[in-house]
């Protein structure tokens, strides 16, 4: 079964055009071509004449849902295209009472995985013309060559263990649902390896990482769980985290950011992906996830639920270590 996004591009444009024309939505959040064929960029269109700029291809990774926050106080609905992972992000915004479901028209996009453009761009295939699903691999044909790329190697990591191939929230769907199985089990072995390091080595590792941070806040701004009206890092009094890039503040910043999304992270990995300094930010979230699974018996902490993991307790079953 083909889950090639490009196959649904025409249908998407038709649907968006119709929705914009009949007034169902007043704008649509989708993708347009970016700087090259590997880097589609988000695009927000409000007029039918812009619709032909919308694209869908196998590199459309960017999670768009956070843009909805720009429209919460406006009248009318926004349309959005959402993959399974994006729909979790949308659920995050909805359960956080930041976005109201009835103000969003979701075009769901069943997804068998998104190709990691950063890896493919290195292969010198030139302008990508066509991507075909070959089951265990994608055939990527560019104007300078073509390659069959094993999914296990060339998809984004999160796509490999994804169990949400089909959007959980959708008003309509592009194409049939795809089989909802993870290509490999989610494993936290890298986290365990880190846990087993002595404190000094952990410290050295994180010092190296956090030293690189430029405090651009791209991680925060792209994160669907970082959806506060006013971010704690922007509040001057009290100042929880200083705005210098001294190591201690960088650490406070990253501790606080990770902590604030603990149990709320939907595991979209966007923070790590957009980080211009390539900080391994998901190593923080995966640590928290792993512990939540173990400590509180919550097998899928990345699925938004009615009660936050840290907003509940089990009086007798929660581990007792502080006696």
């Amino acid at each position, binding site marked *: 079964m083909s889950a090639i996004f490009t196959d649904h591009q025409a249908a998407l444009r038709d649907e968006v055009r119709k929705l914009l024309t009949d007034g169902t939505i007043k704008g649509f959040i989708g993708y347009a071509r*970016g*700087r*090259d064929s590997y*880097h*589609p*960029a*988000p*695009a*927000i269109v409000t007029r039918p004449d*812009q619709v032909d700029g919308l694209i869908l291809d196998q590199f459309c990774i*960017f999670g768009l849902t*956070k*843009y909805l926050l*720009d429209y919460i106080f406006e009248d009318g609905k926004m349309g959005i295209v959402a993959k399974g992972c994006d729909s979790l992000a949308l659920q995050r915004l909805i359960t956080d009472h930041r976005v109201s479901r009835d103000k969003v028209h979701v075009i769901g996009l069943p997804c068998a995985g998104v190709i990691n453009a950063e890896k493919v761009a290195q292969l010198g295939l030139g302008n990508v013309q066509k991507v075909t699903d070959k089951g265990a691999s994608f055939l990527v044909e560019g104007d300078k060559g073509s390659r069959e790329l094993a999914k296990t190697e060339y998809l984004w990591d999160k796509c490999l263990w994804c169990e949400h191939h089909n959007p959980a929230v959708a008003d309509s769907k592009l194409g049939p649902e795809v089989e909802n199985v993870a290509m490999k089990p989610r494993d936290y072995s890298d986290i365990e390896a880190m846990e087993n390091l002595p404190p000094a080595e952990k410290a050295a590792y994180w010092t*190296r*990482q956090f030293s*690189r941070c*430029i*405090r*651009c*806040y*791209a991680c*925060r*701004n*792209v994160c669907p769980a970082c959806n506060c009206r006013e971010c704690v890092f*922007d509040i001057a009094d009290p100042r929880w985290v*200083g*705005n*210098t*890039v*001294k190591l201690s503040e960088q650490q406070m910043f990253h501790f606080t950011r990770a902590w604030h999304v603990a149990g709320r992270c939907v595991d979209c990995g966007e923070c790590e992906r*957009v980080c*211009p*300094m*390539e900080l*391994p930010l998901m190593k923080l979230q995966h640590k928290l996830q792993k512990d939540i699974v173990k400590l509180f018996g919550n097998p899928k902490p990345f699925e938004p639920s009615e009660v936050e993991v840290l907003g509940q307790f089990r009086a007798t079953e929660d581990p007792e270590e502080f006696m």
Partner: protein
Amino acid sequence: MLMTIAPDNLKNLLDKLARDRLLVAPSMEDGVTRLKPVHSAAEIAFDYSNTATSIKDFLFPQSEDLLRFVTDGTLSIEEIKPERAQVAFGLRPCDLASVALMDKVLLGGEFSDAHYQTRRNNTLLIGLACENPADTCFCTTYGYNPGWAGAADVMLYKDGDKYLAEALTDKGRELVGGPGEGLFKPADEAAGEAVKKAYAEKDVPFGKEVDVQGIDKILDGFFYDQYWDDISKKCIGCGTCTYVCPTCHCFLLTDEARGGQGLRFRCWDSCMFANYTKMASGANPRPTKKERVRQRFMHKLNYYPNRYGGSYLCTGCGRCVAMCPVGLHIAGVIKDVKGVKAHA
């Protein structure tokens, strides 16, 4: 005078320099090549297209302590001077060009920024011409090129198995004559000039796509254009573009005091942040992304050339092109604006 230096000698020279000053050079760590302090030449990456961060980090650091004060009943102030000598190696032409643009802002005119001045004086800039411009590079758009030496004290050009070197300033000549003594060899001038010319004429494909000619004038009447509405929608308001940009220079002054000890420092600020222009009253003259996005590009392509005469506040380093999470970058804006205008 053109010279050559063998790679091993270059490494020896850098090792020597690292002993008594801060050596800043491209270095790869966790997959990211950026300019960072290194202990020795062994840590330096010589094979890279451009660094993730620019020379700005060391001439105009992201946060910089300015003065200390004590308020223990009395008030005493101690100025902090960045007196440590530093040498920056491996600067690409775009960064070398950016220093000249920054100089205009921070050193030109009636006042000069004392900290910047000190660092500028204390820093030796060693440039390295570009062998393989990246597909995000567009320095030629602004008239720079892969061999552009700009503010370099010493400029190096990789030439086969050695480097062609040119000392361009007194500081540069001191290096060659001082620590570099015996490591440089005279070069064949004609051959050297040919190498330089080859670098200057190197093809920068993306640069060809982006034509900035006359955009400052077009933008004079573009402030209220619908275009800003359309493109700003996708901005996520992070500071990536401004922080990786070698020419963005906005900053924020802060005092912090505890227990009678205080510190005044400045750190970069970004016009892309929502609270950048937020006033104490809560009012914000740039309340939406539209005003903020417009500000950044107007500043680079219109206000700066208007104020400082001619050059744009961009050197085509391509960092924002590569790193903007949503593909909203200056090259695209230039293309768009000119395209929009053409169709207007």
